[in-house]
């Protein structure tokens, strides 16, 4: 229940984010019991380097407050899509916040939007899409993997988001998006191995007044094939980009200053040997030694409204005349 809006107090069943340090952030559930990997019901105790946390004790605490652990302390935060992206259990490779942010902006998603997504994957992007369309919009998300669909459904329910999302098992490349969604979507997001097979189906699901599409692909070959199909089908403004984020650690560096002037004349024995070395203090920000170098290519395009589509197709044809696709 803890993803919907702003909450003050932790309730039973809430997903809670436990913050220990900047690199140690975890998600737990405020419940007394949990099921172990072997399917046995056990006490829900979360082990940390600062001591054990009995998750039942979280109930009634305030979001944003400090909690004591036997060897230290931590903080509990209400989950946001960003925190969920960092702490969710991966069933697939997920999309991270820098890409998610760009997708939300480029797809022009706002409260009331109808968004279609495939594949659901581990639900990382889904949570951010839901936040954007609430309360009057809706996310329809599809995955062809039965278990992923099941898990996503359970998570949305546990998070209190079921009103805003519908998960279904479907191979959208084969079957399209279904008759119920005919011409209803403002935006479509594809994260599929063969998106060019699904793109033709998007013409049926996007509103007649037009809409936006995004395809996320790790490989450039996938991007090339997708762009080719987008152009043929009359999409405009086809743009491919990548976004990579660098984080900085603020540090005050102390740089010793070497005094080299004295070398210009002969030593006359009068310099004090114990002279203090000058130090310059420098406030700077240092990127990490390792950081992501590639996540995927984001390809965006606009599907013009039906009244402008044929014109766009002929414009695209003129542009690509002579190209072999």
């Amino acid at each position, binding site marked *: 229940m803890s993803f919907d809006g702003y909450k003050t107090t932790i309730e039973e069943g809430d997903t809670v984010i436990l913050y220990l340090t900047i690199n140690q952030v975890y998600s737990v559930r405020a419940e007394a019991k949990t099921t172990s990997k072997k399917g046995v019901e056990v006490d829900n105790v979360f082990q940390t380097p600062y001591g054990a946390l009995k998750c039942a004790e979280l109930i009634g605490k305030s979001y*944003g407050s400090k909690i004591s652990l036997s060897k230290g302390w931590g903080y509990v935060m209400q989950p*946001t899509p960003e925190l969920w992206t960092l702490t969710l259990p991966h069933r697939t490779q997920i999309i991270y916040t820098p890409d998610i942010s760009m997708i939300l902006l480029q797809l022009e998603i706002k409260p009331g939007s109808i968004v279609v997504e495939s594949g659901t994957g581990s639900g990382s992007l889904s949570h951010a899409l839901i936040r954007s369309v609430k309360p009057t919009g809706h996310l329809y998300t599809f995955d062809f993997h039965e278990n992923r669909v099941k898990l996503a459904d359970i998570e949305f329910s546990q998070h209190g988001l079921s009103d805003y999302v519908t998960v279904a098992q479907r191979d959208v490349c084969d079957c399209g998006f279904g008759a119920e969604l005919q011409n209803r979507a403002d935006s479509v997001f594809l994260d599929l191995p063969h998106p060019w097979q699904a793109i033709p189906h998007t013409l049926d699901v996007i509103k007649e007044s037009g809409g936006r599409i995004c395809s996320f692909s790790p490989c450039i070959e996938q991007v090339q094939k997708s762009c080719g199909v987008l152009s043929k089908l009359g999409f405009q403004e086809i743009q491919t980009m990548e976004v990579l984020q660098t984080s900085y650690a603020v540090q005050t560096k102390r740089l010793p200053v070497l005094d080299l002037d004295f070398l210009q004349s002969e030593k006359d024995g009068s310099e004090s040997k114990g002279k203090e070395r000058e130090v310059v203090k420098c406030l700077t920000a240092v990127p990490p030694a390792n950081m992501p170098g590639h996540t995927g*290519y984001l390809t965006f395009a606009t599907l013009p409204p039906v009244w*402008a589509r044929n*014109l766009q197709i002929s*414009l695209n044809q003129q542009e690509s005349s002579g190209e072999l696709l």
Partner: protein
Amino acid sequence: MDDNAIKVGDFVIVQRQGYTKLHKLKEHGTLSLGSFNMEMDNIVGEKYSDTFQMKNYPGSKKLFTLEKVDEIPSVLSINIEKSGADNRNITDDGQSQNLTTEEIAKLKSEELNSNNIVGKLITNSRTFNEKTEYSQEKYMKKKEKKYFEYVQIRRPTIRLLATMFYRQDPTKTLGIRSDDLSQIITYSNVQAQGTHLLYDSGTSGLLPAALLNQIGAQNPAHLVHVHPGNECQKSAIVAMNFPQEQLARCINVNLYSVLRCFYQNKDAYNSEPQCKKIKLDDSAPKKPGWQIENEKACRLLEVGVDSLVVAAKEHPVSIVDQLVRFLKGGRYLVVFSATREPLQDLYNHLKERLDFIYIRIVSNFMRSYQVLPDRTHPEVNMTSGGYVLTGFKLVS
């Protein structure tokens, strides 16, 4: 109700190839787009995403009228007779084109038909047939772009405005690039509920428009938009054609004025807002609009806000220090700066405060790609973004 019809008074984006410009549509008016001046009258009543052909105004060299087109006449693509294998024998001496500048200008003013003009340029080019196929294609695309006679009318959206403002002059929006903007929106956790506080000292209204857009229509959320001037910058806000009820939930107040009201005029905003019916006393002086807005803002600030976003050309520490007391515990602070040093100062300041955790400074590498068969590569030109600081305020 035709939502898609273009009406007088609408703000529209006029797009010619990659070039976009914001324009407020009057009943009779002209717009200058690059070197072209066009009469916009014929757009009224048509639909968004319609394409119009620029037709030379009889008797004028530079003025064009717009005529709606439903289809591009299928012109036979320019036939390339032959191409070379590589450029080993081609010298760029500036003498390849036989037509003079005046002759080309004459063609342009007679009839702006890109196919026709490009065809003539190719016919009169000495070196065209020696170029490789790819080079010929690149040449044709470049010339077509220059003489392209079609414009499209687009409805303004945040991403179109952000890209347009950045391309025209990044300083007009404090250097906020689209990736910066997208992350300011997500990290601040702005939603269709709650109260959100923004200090913005110069983004041409892009940030308040983006946050107001994320708040959405028909819900109880508010945006308190604090600015340092007499009037807030509004370009992007008006361009978005927000409905009145949504605009009413964006409360624009001056920084000094609202803080003075908050601390010194507690009686004014603590009492319930007076109903118009009760105020029958004509002798009571009417409150100026800005004072009413200040009081509205103070009432919201007193309850506390659910996000704080700061994008300032001034040093952020003193601003954050003042405004962060309005931020509820358990919520996020997002500060944008085009340069990193002010955020480094803010980082250390927040660390000393003890009521902030999860403080991060990030910046982004953003690059576009040219995707063409056998010619896919990152684009040759790149832009630079700014820095975003985020932090989580603890509950005391």
